């Protein structure tokens, strides 16, 4: 652990939040609260489709897993799911142990996530 968390957020056509998280996703880092508040704000705005890019995440604990579960729960209420990009074996293992792998969809990049939403949620007809 080196106690750093970095968050970058962008949107695809105002309906898909693309959140890139690098560093350590744990309650012990200062920026964790910021991430939670930001995520909550997007949910209040009515956004429930998210692509979480964890490609540069080095550590995650149960509080970090909790953020993913919250997003997945909101998506589920809208009969949708969230997309997760993650290829580091140690992070993927934690997501498997927590059963998070069963409530998210793993994609290999942002474009695949967008294509998934376009195909499953018929986004092409809405935008």
């Amino acid at each position, binding site marked *: *652990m*080196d*106690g750093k968390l970095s968050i970058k957020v962008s949107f695809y056509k105002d309906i898909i939040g693309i959140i890139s998280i690098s560093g350590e996703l*744990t*309650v*012990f*880092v200062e920026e964790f609260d910021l991430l939670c508040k930001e995520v909550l704000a997007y949910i209040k705005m009515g956004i429930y489709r998210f692509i979480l890019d964890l490609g540069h995440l080095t550590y995650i*604990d*149960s*509080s970090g*897993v*909790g953020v993913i*579960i*919250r997003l*997945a*729960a909101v998506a*589920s209420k809208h009969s949708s799911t969230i997309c997760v990009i993650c290829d580091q*074996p*140690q992070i993927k*293992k*934690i997501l498997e*142990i*927590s*059963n998070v792998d*069963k*409530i998210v969809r793993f994609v290999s990049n942002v474009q695949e996530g967008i294509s998934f939403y376009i195909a499953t949620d018929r986004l092409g007809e809405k935008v």
Partner: protein
Amino acid sequence: MIFKFTISGREDQIVQFEKKLLDILNKTGRMDEVTSHEIHFCVHEAILNIIQHTYKWDLDKLIEIRVDITDEEEKQIFEVWIRDFGESIDKPIFPPRKVGQFQLRKRGVYMISKIMDEFYVKPHHEIGNVTYMKKIFIL
């Protein structure tokens, strides 16, 4: 080999301790990188539980940690005892066998139980509680 640490809940002390723990696991543990990451995760979660639930985010309270690594002929045993000095729990805590799809509570202890071979939290006979975890690696 026995390693002993005393830390507070302050971020810098936890970071320093976890670096040392990873160092110990990498140098003396006969496990791959993913497994040492899992062990690190369990110890981190146990400390997080103490800070959240026992110490209620009072980051100055102390936590004692003892790590034992025992080499036997065909296996290596990793054990850790984490002692807190907060209010003792009424009865031992054992992890749930399963958690709901979107359940947040108890997911950390559930995850520890899936990684470790043995795990419980019991009240200490003097003051506070002891978290115990054990993992056996067959060589």
